[in-house]
Each structure stands twice: as C-alpha cells, then as structure tokens.
C-alpha cells in the first residue's frame, strides 16, 4: 500500500486515539479487510512505539548516571577471570600442598555465589537502624557493585569499595559489606585482618552474618 499524507494522518489519529466513533469503527473494519492497510498501521505503530522507547532509554541513561553514579560505583571496569591462568594457579596451589587454602577458597566462593542475604522486612515501628530509605538504596547499590568487582575483578580491587560501604552507618547492607570484606581479606591473604573482622561480626548480636562468622572462626 502506498503511504499518502492523508493516510499517515489517519493512522496517527487511529493510533493516538483521537479518531473516535463511527470513523474509528470504519477504519478498523478496513484494516480487517485490507492487508496492506493493516500492515501499514502495524509498521507505523512499530515506528511510533520504537521512537518512544528510544527516547525513554535516554531518560533512563540519565537516571542511571544519577542513581548509580551517585554512589560512585558505575564505571569500575569488570575484568573476567582468565581460565588458563586460573587453572595454572590452581595446579600450583595443589602442588605446593596448600590444601587448606583451597578449602577456604571453595567456602568463600560458595558465599560469593550466594550473594548477600535479602534485607529483612522491618515492622512499621521498628527504627532500630534508623537509616533513610535513600541511604539503604545507596548502600545496597554500593555493595552490589563491590561484589561484582569481587567476583569478576578480584579481592584487591574490591577491598577499598567494601571498606567504604562497611564504614557507613550501620544497616543491613553495611553489615553485609563487613562479611564480604572479611572474605576479600582472606582471599588476599590478609588472615589477621579477616580474623579480627570475623570476631567482631560473630560478637555482634543481630548481625546478618553472625552465625557464618562464628562458623568460619571454628
């Protein structure tokens, strides 16, 4: 079907809902009987909605910069762990007979794969932690980004980010950051730092990882 100026106007009015009543019914009837018209309307609808999606996408890029950029975590490059060097490193580790370290690594990876525990739902009058919803959001995002770095880039890069989250006023996410910081310390071979942090977590009543920390210290 050839697109004419009048047809373009009619299709626009049909799609935006300004074509009403008998005129709309007649147009819909034509679409049923004329394949060319129906396909033209579909094409115009695709273009119209696609243009809106592209425009909206720009809006969410701005939201991304505002929300994620605000926590200073967005631009950290993610480097995937190369399989070959990992395999060589693992073989060397086995050859050197440090099985205990291998075992600790397995436990650490299990914790990492599981991701942080969800935030508990607080009762309406429960103001124990006192942080604003915005603070919770910022901390949870910062923790998510730090864990992405820990998983894909390594403990050395993740430690400063985790230390930053863990130093924020106490809430579920900053407490969780302490636990992952202990894991990162351990991965980096900073056994004493890891032990001190685990002892503090294990001694903190209500800490989301109190039980896990106690188990790791045994």
């Amino acid at each position, binding site marked *: 079907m050839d*697109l*004419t*100026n009048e047809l*373009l106007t009619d299709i*626009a009015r049909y799609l*935006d809902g300004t074509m009403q009543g008998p005129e709309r019914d007649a147009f819909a009837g034509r679409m049923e009987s004329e394949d060319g018209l129906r396909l033209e309307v579909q*094409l*115009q*609808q*695709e*273009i*119209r*909605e*696609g*243009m*809106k*999606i*592209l*425009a*909206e*996408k720009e*809006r*969410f*890029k701005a*939201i*991304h910069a*505002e*929300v*994620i950029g605000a926590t200073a975590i*967005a631009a950290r*490059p*993610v480097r*995937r762990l190369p399989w070959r060097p990992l395999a060589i490193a693992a073989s060397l580790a086995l050859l050197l007979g440090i099985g205990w370290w291998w075992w600790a690594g397995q436990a650490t990876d299990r914790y990492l*794969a*599981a*991701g942080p525990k*969800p935030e508990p*739902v*607080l009762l*309406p009058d429960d103001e124990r932690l006192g942080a604003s*919803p915005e603070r*919770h*959001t910022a901390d*949870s*995002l910062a923790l*998510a980004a730090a*864990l*992405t770095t820990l*998983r*894909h880039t390594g403990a050395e890069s993740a430690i400063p980010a985790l230390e930053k989250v863990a130093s924020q006023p106490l809430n579920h996410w900053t407490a969780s950051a302490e636990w992952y910081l202990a894991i990162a310390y351990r991965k980096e071979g900073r056994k004493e730092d890891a032990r001190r942090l685990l002892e503090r977590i294990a001694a903190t009543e209500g800490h989301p990882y109190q039980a896990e920390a106690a188990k790791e210290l045994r």
Partner: protein
Amino acid sequence: MYPSGHLSSSQADEALYQALVSDEKKAWNTLYADVYRRFIPYALQRSTVSEDDAGDILQEAFAVFSVNLRNGRYQFVGKPVGAYVFRLCQLKWYTFMRDTDKPLPLDSLRKTGEDDDEDFEWDLADVANTPGGDLNALEKAMLELQDGCRKLMQFFYVEEKSLAECGALLGIQEGSAKVKRFRCAQQLRDLYFRYRKDD
C-alpha cells in the same frame, strides 16, 4: 520497596505503581536502583555480557516498561512491579546474547533453586509481547535523517504534537510542516523497512 516501613509488601508495590503512573522521579529512581541491584549481578554471573551491555539492556527494559505503563499495556495486578521489569530485562538479555551469537540455553530464563522467588512471579508470556519492533534498525534509520527531519519525527511520533505545533517549533507554516512531515515519515519508514532484521 516504595515507600518502605509502614505498608505491607503488596500495598508498597501498589503505592510504587501509582507513583510511577504519576511519573514521580523518586519512584523511578527507587525502582531503577532495585532492579539494577538484582539484574546486573544476575546477568554477569550467567553470561559473558559486559557490564556496559548489561546496563544498556537494563535501560532498554526500563524504557519498554515505561511505554507499557503509559499506554496501559502494563497493569498492576498485585505482583511486584520490579519483578515485571526484571523479567523484561531477562528477555532483552536473552535476545542480546542470541543476536550477538552468544546463545544462552532456554533454561537460563527459568528459575533455579538459588534465584529470588520474587523475580519469577511473572510468566515470560506475560512480558513477551513487548512493543518497539527492531530498535537497532530504527536507531540506524533515524541517524540517516537530516537534523530537521529527525526533530520533526520526534515531535510527531514521540511528543505527538499537532502540525501547527510542529510548524511553530520549526519556524515554518502549518502547510509546509504537513508536507515536510510526510516526506520525513516516508523516508524514515523506507529506511526502517530496509534495516529491519526480518525483512
């Protein structure tokens, strides 16, 4: 959750939905942060997608959700709003991986024991009927238009402005705007048709 604290989970979701319908910035920011926190690690752990591409997928899913919300294709039915967007992200992620020759098994869209239940409350069929056609083709077609045409197409398709308004914005008469709009729309249509994947 929005707002948190004094409402049940379902009430908070409905409040979030209403705030999104009212286009409250804080609600969009909260939802974005929530889905970002769940989807980015999810995609990075399960595929070779880069963090930048995962972010692009997330933003496209949000754009689709926003359009669905405005045109009524998305209606609140008591399920978490974030779960709907998460599922949209999954679909976009799957399509991206397939189109870049890094196919994922279909199982990657199904729930595993480790997944958050909330993220799977929507069936894929509920979110699969997403609008927009081939966005890459449309983006490519738009880039080939001249500036004046591109602006006019934005006014016409996105902002749904009248011919008189389009003319005023471009500094031309309404009659001229009508002729120009038709020529630009025809050019865009032909370019889109040429680049669209399934044609």
